[in-house]
């Protein structure tokens, strides 16, 4: 095939319009390099085609250019590739949204878990706090009581009477502290059997063989109180404790448990 035949075979138009196969394209490009006449003929057809298409141009809506120029800065330049990649941008954008949505969900789950954990910890802490406050109040009361006891016992005017167990309760032991100035009476129960629920111990002062009621021992002496303040007495030769019906008795009727002389 000579050059003239090749030029008029339709290969030029086929190549320029993008209709040639890859093999035809390669052959044509090689021919163009070898023969300037072919390149010239190609150039002529290209210009004729361009001329025709410019004559029949249709003005696009002006907003396309605005949108285009605005989008240029975000368009990455891609190195030489001949394949058309217009589908890629939206696909890539979509995956970014997916990743962000997934990240948001993960974050949300994390925050929810954190909140639940935190709330549980808070509830536990509140309960612990209440328990500690109760303990503290109890301890404070006990400390106050101990201080009061200690102060009372340090009083130099205080006279101590040790009440020893009788035959009814040989192991029982109690102390009575009598303030000779204020006439206050305090009782410390060291060891006495716990009375039945319908009975109470009662303290007596004894002057000239006559018992004077100094009050019953309230039940809470076995719970917390160390030193009980009893009724005042002007004078006493001895102190004794008897077991009486709940509420006490005007005169001792039950059996005596401890006794001691001043």
């Amino acid at each position, binding site marked *: 095939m000579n050059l003239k035949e090749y030029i008029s075979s339709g290969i030029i138009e086929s190549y320029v319009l*993008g209709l040639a196969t890859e093999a035809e394209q390669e052959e044509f490009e090689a021919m163009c390099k070898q023969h300037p006449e072919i390149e010239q003929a190609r150039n002529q057809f*290209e210009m004729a*085609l361009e001329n025709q298409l410019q004559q029949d141009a249709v003005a696009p809506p002006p907003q396309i250019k605005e949108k285009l120029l605005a989008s240029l800065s975000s368009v990455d330049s891609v190195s030489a590739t001949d394949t058309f990649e217009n589908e890629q941008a939206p696909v890539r954008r979509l995956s970014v949204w997916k990743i962000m949505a997934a990240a948001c969900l993960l974050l949300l789950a994390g925050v929810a878990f954190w909140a639940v954990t935190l709330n549980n910890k808070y509830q536990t802490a509140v309960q612990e706090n209440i328990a500690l406050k109760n303990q503290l109040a109890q301890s404070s009361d006990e400390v106050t009581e101990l201080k009061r006891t200690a102060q009372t016992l340090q009083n130099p005017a205080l006279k101590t009477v040790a009440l020893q167990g009788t035959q009814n309760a040989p192991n029982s032991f109690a102390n009575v502290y009598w303030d000779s100035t204020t006439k206050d009476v305090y009782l410390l129960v060291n060891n006495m059997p716990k009375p039945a629920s319908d009975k109470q111990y009662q303290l007596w002062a004894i002057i000239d063989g006559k018992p004077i009621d100094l009050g019953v021992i309230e039940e809470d002496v076995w719970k917390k109180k160390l030193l009980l303040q009893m009724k005042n007495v002007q004078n006493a030769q001895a102190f004794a404790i008897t077991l009486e019906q709940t509420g006490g008795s005007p005169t001792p009727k039950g059996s005596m448990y401890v006794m001691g002389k001043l």
Partner: protein
Amino acid sequence: MFLSVTNFLNANTTYEEQELVHLLKQKDEQAFSYLYDNYAAALYGVVKQIVTDVEVGNDVLQEVFVSIWRKIESYDAGKGRLFTWMLNIARNAAIDKTRSKGYQQSLRQQPILDDDDMMHAPVRPGIDDYGLKKVLFKLKDEQRMLIDLSYYQGFTHEQIAKALSIPLGTVKTRIRSALLQLRTLLS
């Protein structure tokens, strides 16, 4: 005053093709703006002959220029003029779009290789006969159909031969001769 004169001068700058390509490869936005002003309408005309939907056609034109901006590095002046390169990008983008699922559904088109479709709608209706199409109409019917199928619808010679039950050699010969007539008609 000075600024407006500068703008006026810039607006009227004309570039030699070689210079324009050089600036585009350096990502010169002013050169790109010039390129758009001078070629967008011609390429839009081509796109509209392939894509009938106006909105889709607008999208394609924008995609075409984004592609030009991104791929200008790969343009080789030894293989042809800049316009030819852009024309092929535009044609490929438009044909790709008509083959996308969304577009096919919107037009309720049949699958690509439907013999009846090809036979009965060789030159698709609804497209104004302007531009290159007008030139095409001067061709004989069978040639017109082959150009439409290969150029505007992007079918390969093999696909056309199979669909129309014509030997491949005949398809090639007819298209070649149609293209040669096109050259005569253009010049």
